[in-house]
């Protein structure tokens, strides 16, 4: 290649304004790499993202959003953070994990121990959120890093069984470490969130605006979700993200291309566990009361499966997918409850209870998505988008 050493480097020389006119209305004419690689590279993406973010921030003030609705939204976003983490290791790096609940549990109890109040049988240091939240992520991440070399030796079904084992080991540990978890069937209170003395779980009045009890924490989790989502997205399109995808698509081929297999898998597990830990600590706040059964044993297995369902329904190997999937998993039961009355054969004393209908719908949807649209709800969106993107052609 002729190296154009004396050519005007892009962006360094001020380009006269009339030159910009030749770029207007030409979204595909990239003159800078930054614009080429921008996440929100089209005006419509910027518009819709802005609208979505504004709607989310306005949520506590929308008339039809109840306080319980707001805590549902908070739980949804916490689950989304955890699911994004699982999607990094399972969706991007292709390492199926049934043990995600274990890392979520570690985060939850770490957060509760460091941020919660002490009682007669559990410890509690009442630390600041700025300490216990990162600590929850780091402890879970560290455990993930320690366990990863084991997990990196196996793949597929064996890996699924191995990670399943974590959930049961977790059950044992959580039950035995009574001074942290409160013990079997008893549990303990979650941490109370406060940043530098500012309580996040009490009503506030700021600049004359009334905020309900759930609102400050809702905002905190929303901002955290945006930050961690963007971080994950950037990781996924970086060199590391490409290494993840290479390992997923064919580990041997990836190694031949010079992708260090062990290192890549360990990093994937570590980061995924970190996200899981953060999710756990946030859930601990949202739940209020947590027991070892939430995160270990059958309860843990159910939680792990729920995370898998979120990424499968939402969209494997995407960042928006887990958010969509979490919304679906959290909001679907509420919809079913709201409309159960108008569906025949459903309700107390009828053929199906509302919970049964929920369970059946959930299972059916997972089966349908796996068979019909493996890319999940995000895949459905892609189909819609591509349909219009190619208009009036089909490809």
């Amino acid at each position: 290649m002729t190296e154009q050493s004396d050519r005007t480097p892009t962006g360094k020389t001020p380009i006269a304004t009339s030159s910009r006119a030749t770029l207007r209305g030409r979204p595909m004419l990239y003159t800078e790499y930054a614009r080429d690689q921008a996440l929100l590279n089209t005006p419509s993406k910027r518009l819709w993202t802005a609208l979505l973010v504004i709607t989310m921030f306005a949520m506590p003030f929308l008339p039809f959003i109840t306080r319980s609705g707001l805590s549902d939204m908070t739980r949804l976003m916490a689950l989304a953070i955890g699911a994004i983490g699982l999607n990094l290791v399972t969706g991007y790096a292709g390492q199926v994990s049934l043990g995600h609940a274990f890392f979520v549990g570690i985060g939850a109890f770490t957060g509760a121990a460091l941020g919660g109040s002490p009682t007669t049988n559990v410890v509690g240091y009442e630390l600041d959120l700025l300490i216990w939240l990162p600590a929850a992520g780091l402890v879970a991440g560290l455990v993930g890093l320690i366990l990863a070399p084991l997990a990196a030796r196996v793949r597929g079904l064996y890996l699924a069984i191995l990670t399943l084992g974590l959930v049961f080991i977790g059950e044992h540990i959580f039950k035995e470490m009574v001074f942290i978890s409160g013990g079997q069937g008893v549990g303990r209170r979650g941490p109370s969130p406060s940043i530098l003395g500012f309580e996040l779980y009490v009503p506030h009045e700021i600049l004359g605006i009334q905020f309900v009890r759930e609102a400050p924490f809702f905002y905190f989790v929303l901002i955290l979700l945006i930050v961690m989502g963007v971080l994950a997205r950037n990781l996924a399109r970086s060199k590391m993200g490409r290494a993840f995808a290479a390992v997923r698509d064919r580990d041997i081929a990836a190694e031949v291309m010079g992708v260090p297999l062990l290192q890549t898998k360990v990093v994937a597990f570590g980061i995924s566990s970190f996200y899981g830990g953060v999710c756990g600590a946030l859930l601990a706040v949202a739940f209020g009361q947590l027991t070892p059964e939430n995160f270990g044993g059958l309860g843990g297995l159910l939680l792990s499966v729920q995370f898998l369902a979120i990424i499968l329904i939402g969209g494997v190997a995407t960042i928006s997918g887990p958010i969509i999937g979490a919304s679906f998993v959290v909001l679907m039961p509420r919809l079913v409850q709201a409309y159960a009355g108008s569906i025949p054969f459903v309700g107390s004393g009828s053929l199906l209870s509302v919970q049964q209908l929920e369970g059946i719908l959930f299972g059916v949807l997972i089966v349908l998505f796996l068979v019909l649209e493996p890319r999940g709800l995000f895949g459905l969106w892609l189909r819609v988008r591509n349909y219009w993107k190619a208009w009036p052609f089909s490809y």
Partner: protein
Amino acid sequence: MGTVMEPAATAGDTGIQTVVTKVRDRARAMPDTVAMREKRYGIWQDITWGHYYEQVELVGHALLALGVEEGDRVAVHSENRPEWLYGDLGTNAIRAITMGLYPTNPAAEVRYLLQDSGSKVLIAEDQEQVDKAIEVEADCPDLKTIVYLEPRGVRDYDHPKLMSWDDFIALGVEHRDRDRDAVERLIASAESSDIATLIYTSGTTGPPKGAMLTHGNVSFAMHTLIEGGGFYDPAPGPKDVILSYLPLCHVAERAATTWTNAEAGVTVHFAESIETVQVNLREVQPTLFFAVPRIWEKMQAGIFIKMNAASPLKKLVYKAGMGLANKIGDEMVANDGAHTPLTRVLYAIGYPFVFRALRDRVGLRKVRAAGSGAAPIAPEVLKFFFGIGVPIHEIYGMTENAAVATVNRRGRVKLGTVGEPQPGIGFRLDEETGEILTKHPGVFAGYWNKPDKTQETFTDDGWLRTGDVGEWVDGTHIKIVDRIKDIIITAGGKNISPSEIENSLKTSPFIKEAVVIGDKKPYLTALIGIELDTVGDWAQRRKLPYTTYRDLSEKPEVLELIQKSIIKTNDKFARVENIRKFRMMPKELDHEDGEMTATQKVKRSALHEIFGPLVEDMYGNTTEHAGGDLSEVHSGTRPTADDEAEVA
């Protein structure tokens, strides 16, 4: 927006206005404004006027350092890229002559062109072109230096005449440090009778001839075609965007790229290669677009193919849109290519549903003026593009008159004609032959080293013979009948214009090439070459298996398809002009094999030789080769392996 300063003549500058001075003046007035963009490493890199002119000057200095003198020839053998323009203008800056070669020119033609022009320096793009040059270099005693642009593959060549572009420019820098004003002095001393460029005619008959265009010719062409809106109407300006992709050694693209850029300050974008034109077009979305008929036809065929594969709803909407487009097209054609209130309403209805998206997909969304030239275009194609809102205006000209002859002006379009003579030029038809004659300051100075050929090209009173037979339509517009030497006189003594029939045949999306034969023969016949994309797509949808181009051509179903097109064309012509038989050309015509010129024009004489057996087959009443007549088709005797090898 903002006001763009018009280049003001700087005090102290003397001499005439040339392309070089226009670029220089822009570089001085607005050094940081983008003059062109080139896609490299995945993004479109800005090149400012300041950088452009600096490179031009450095090329000038470098050529001086290499001993190039006034009147020497410098050859450029490259795809379109900024260095083509640097080389071209740098050569002109030192009063030397630029000569361009088509990237597809095979080594034998490169030898002829380098020998004939006596080029001293060759700027070759990459290994492919360097290899050709090295192969023939021994036969070209005048060639002193070969400058290559892409070092990949060439870096390790050990050849005394080779030099990289970087070294070449470094030589220029060195020379500039020694004699800063050397190039400036030569620019100032340029005269309008200086030869600026040799443009080799494509040579459908005989070897190519180098047409000499002077600075005076070029200035006149720039004035008439660009400033006067003779190429694009209204005249281009600095806000316009163009894509450069046709060979720059052809007068049409030189006008559309180099001259339009220098004269009007449009931003040029260089396509990555001829294969990526479609993609680049979508990215760049030019406001002005010039194409040869073949490109327009391909674009239209591409739309048809893609729509055939679209989902039912999309097809339905497209069909409705095409209904509108047809109406708009008809209405506009009836109204001399101008909008009427009705077409505006129809267009506004169709725009949000089909036209906007369709134009965006093919890269024509922002096109405000489009041109077609260099070959006749089918009226159906023009109507289609009129209908979707892309006004294509046919322009006619040739190298020898610097592309200045006739044009269809906005709102005064007559389909099937090449428009009205450009304002202020001498233009008439020969009383006897009907040959088009022109006389104006753009008419060339003659053929390089071929005074006899030059003399043949001019009438005794100094008019240029174009070699095209034309006729007046409504007293204002000119219709091209045919090349004077292509006209067929049948055994019955009838004069027939083959290209009219051929163009009508080629309006079928399935026919790429049609060559009508019948000189001194009792009736007309045709050699047909299919369009592989569309026929392949058609066959696929009919679940018709095929292997090669030849295999597909000779399928009975395809033969029937072609037969139908021929019968449809025959209906439009008088009986004596009807095609009675046809044969399929067993291969795609190619420049490399000497069947076509670099500009994709069919070399008739070569075809008669190559496909002689096919012609004999038709007039000898045998059916050895695949083809048919108006009532039946036959696949011919199956080719043996030997036959295949022979054709391949």
